[in-house]
């Protein structure tokens, strides 16, 4: 029933307040256990399963999806979400996202020689019944490395494969680092190897592409080809059946699925605008909802017909302080504390303490976001530094730090001047989002004003995603601080984001110490997992000290699931086996 109101259940309120208290007082660890209590990771619906049935999946999105259904080419995460029903990675991973031996292929790493062996199981078939060959495993490399390839995946990591650059330049016909050992084994040679290889990094590609279908299509034409857009051949539990471009996809079960024939007849994935999703869930139109925005939680929390699954996301948001510039000539970050408005660590820390992120998390996100204390989300249990205090809301402390650092109000307008007595106006760049985002940013500005800091918006309004990163990356002088977020992926390594040469190191802070950790984490030495974890923790600690980037929020991902769905899980360590999903009734529960 969609007609429920928010305030009906005192139970929820209790939980809410409880969470606030805990987050305010204790470490995040508590919050983490708390979150386990908040949401299930898997549905526990019992009942007699029906034969077959169609699973209806809603994907919340206000625009059409792009519809590129090839792992090597897609760029939109939504395409990946859709494809997930039909594709299957070559490798399976464990709860730490490390590659295991359970998948279609196994990975053998030869650290000494910077080589890996990829071995595929026999008897695995594509959705059209053709067998998976080792050429299928090689094809993606030849696509990505091809000179006509226009995607983002031909990058430094990929160039780590020996011969990739020559192939790309057109001077070689193939990638010399790829070597077919036998019909089921591929050897790949890399320039260097790091622990990332176990997470699918360093240039390793974890998907296969059907040579028999797309092998002959020129790479330049691939992205628009029907083989990619309309009838992709896949390895997953389901196969593409019908597509309404940009709107919906219908899958049917793949009888050839290597793990066994799926129990469902098929899956329908449909794009649903954010404005209608809540009501649609209530009326039982969908079984599973992907990309559900946590701010809409209050709208669905009283529905009886669904189970809300939740898991921490591989994500953190942060407040960045510009303390330098990127030198594009020499490709290096140049930190300049003295010359930057935000150069004073006290100022930065005070700004962190002044933010009432806790209240925002509670009120706007129903605690589906929580105060972040570090730059590694707690899901990465072994790397996450739970000991860090973070910058919890403490306006008094913020004020005293500012007083101490000489940021005092000399002209009596209620706003602090800088230590030289000059007016201090801090320009914040923040990304636009939904209506809530605007309120939240206004609230943060207000928080700062409350401690006497005059923070205003760069350009006077929230900045749209694309231009935001453009400006931030270009070190726009109008930006002193910025609020960004990173999805970490399954490999939370700070490489690329905090290194001295990284353009994405937007705060432009680099130091020998930091660089040490960043390099250390991905160095060969880090094959020692414990040492690596230590480096991670030290990195988090260091950033907390210098406060050039202040973590703001971790967030939960919410997946509302209709009560008729059985065997569905979003647990990272025990993910859903798609072919196992079942339905317990013909129609969704209303």
């Amino acid at each position: 029933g969609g007609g429920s109101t928010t305030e009906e259940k005192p139970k929820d309120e209790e939980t809410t307040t409880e969470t606030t208290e805990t987050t305010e007082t204790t470490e995040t660890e508590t919050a983490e256990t708390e979150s386990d209590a908040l949401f299930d990771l898997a549905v526990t619906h019992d009942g007699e399963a029906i034969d077959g049935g169609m699973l209806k999946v809603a994907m919340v999105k206000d625009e059409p999806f792009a519809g590129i259904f090839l792992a090597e080419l897609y760029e939109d995460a939504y395409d990946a979400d859709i494809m997930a029903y039909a594709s299957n990675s070559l490798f399976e991973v464990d709860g730490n996202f490390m590659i295991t031996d359970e998948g279609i292929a196994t990975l053998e790493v030869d650290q000494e020689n910077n080589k890996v062996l990829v071995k595929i199981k026999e008897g695995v078939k594509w959705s059209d019944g053709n067998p998976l060959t080792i050429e299928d495993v090689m094809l993606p490399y030849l696509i990505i490395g091809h000179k006509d390839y226009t995607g983002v995946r031909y990058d430094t990591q990929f160039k780590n494969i020996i011969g990739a650059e020559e192939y790309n330049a057109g001077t070689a016909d193939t990638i010399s680092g790829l070597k077919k050992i036998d019909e089921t084994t591929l050897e790949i040679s890399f320039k260097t190897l790091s622990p990332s290889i176990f997470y699918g990094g360093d240039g390793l590609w974890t998907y296969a592409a059907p040579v028999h279908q797309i092998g002959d299509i020129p790479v330049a034409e691939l992205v628009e080809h029907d083989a990619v857009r309309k009838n992709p051949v896949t390895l997953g539990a389901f196969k593409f059946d019908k597509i309404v471009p940009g709107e919906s996809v219908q899958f049917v079960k793949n009888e050839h699925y290597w793990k066994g024939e799926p129990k469902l007849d098929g899956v329908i994935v449909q794009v649903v605008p954010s404005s209608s999703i809540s009501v649609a869930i209530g009326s039982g139109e969908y079984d599973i909802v992907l990309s559900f925005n946590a701010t809409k939680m209050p709208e669905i929390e009283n529905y009886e017909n669904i189970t809300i699954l939740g898991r921490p996301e591989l994500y953190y948001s942060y407040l960045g302080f510009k303390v330098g510039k990127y030198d594009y000539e020499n490709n290096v970050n140049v930190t300049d504390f003295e010359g930057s408005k935000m150069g004073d660590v006290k100022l930065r820390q005070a700004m962190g303490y002044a933010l009432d992120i806790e209240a925002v998390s509670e009120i706007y996100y129903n605690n589906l976001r929580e105060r972040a204390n570090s730059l590694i989300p707690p899901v990465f249990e072994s790397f996450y530094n739970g000991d860090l205090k973070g910058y919890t809301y403490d306006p008094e402390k913020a004020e005293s730090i500012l007083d101490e650092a000489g940021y005092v109000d000399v002209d009596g307008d209620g706003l602090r001047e800088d230590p030289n007595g000059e007016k201090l106006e801090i320009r914040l760049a923040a990304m636009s989002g939904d209506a809530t985002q605007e309120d939240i940013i206004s609230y943060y500005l207000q928080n700062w004003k409350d401690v006497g800091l005059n923070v205003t918006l760069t350009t006077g309004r929230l900045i749209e995603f694309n231009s935001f990163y453009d400006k931030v990356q270009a070190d726009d002088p109008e930006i002193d601080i910025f609020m960004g977020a990173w999805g970490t992926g399954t490999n939370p390594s700070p490489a690329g984001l905090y290194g001295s040469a990284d353009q994405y190191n937007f705060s432009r802070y680099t130091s020998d110490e930091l660089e040490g950790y960043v390099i250390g984490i991905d160095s060969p030495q880090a094959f020692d997992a414990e040492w690596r974890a230590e480096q991670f923790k030290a990195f988090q600690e260091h950033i907390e000290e210098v406060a050039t980037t202040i973590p703001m929020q971790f967030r939960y991902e919410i997946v509302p699931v209709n009560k008729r769905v059985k065997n569905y899980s979003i647990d990272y360590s025990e993910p859903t086996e798609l072919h196992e999903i079942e339905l317990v009734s013909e129609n969704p529960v209303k």
Partner: protein
Amino acid sequence: MWKTVVRRVLIMIPQLFVLSLIVFILAKFMPGDPFSGLITPETDPARIEELREKAGLNDPWYQQYARWIGNLVQGDLGKSYTFQRSVGDLIGEKALNTLWLSLVSVILLYLIAIPLGILAGRYNNSKLDKTIVLYSFISYAIPTFVLGLLFLYLFGYKLQWFPTVGSVSVGLDPGTFSWYIDKIYHLILPAFVFAVLGTTGVIQYLRSEIIDAKALDYVRTARSKGIPMRKVYSKHIFRNSLLPIAAFLGFTITGLLSGSVFIETIFGYPGMGQLFISSVLSRDYSVITALVMLFGFLALLGSLLSDIIMSIVDPRIRIE
């Protein structure tokens, strides 16, 4: 008449050219570009820069323009960065939806507005007339999205009479009868809102036209022939008042097209309007420019259509 048509088409060329220049320059001035959206910790900024260079986005605008217009003349609208496919194909798909929407809207609009306009005009100053006029004022005054949202909520969510997403259910084979029915079923609600909002103009125009016509000399002549009032209305008054409405068809359709930005956004209807908004947000230049050009072209076509209809239905223009 075909001469006028050809002339109008010739005039369209410079108009479209100027439009293309304006929209291209504007699009280039938009902050950010499609590639800045690709940013994730895994993507390599150097690769993004490389792609940008490859796509020619670092060239001076006039070179980009020359390239673009060159392709355009050859019928190549470029490639969407977000959808990674030819803009022509992409828009073609959405255009069909929007045209369907406009078409059904126009039909509904005329179905609602013409009888109301005729009634109000025929019985002017009556209670009925006053009610219709009030209705037309309200439908003019009510913001599109308020009415749209209310209808969506009421008929889509609450009563569940109509689907609330998409343009067609997945699983039907395009071209089959049930596919067509399903498509129409999907667009009835937005089309209805659209139609209701558009009725004001037609109603008011018809009404005043009919009121004026009643006092015209030729109507008096017709009445003096002793033909029944009903016939006087149908053969003289309505017919003459409806002709301009028929001729406005072209303009009405283009008007509806531009309103599609709102309607499609509200109803999540995947047409050109929605595509436009999402392209603006994702800075998909090629799509933005192509869409603006297309809308401009359709507007020109609409006015041309109106002229043609007018010259067909009005003997004063037809026979010079």
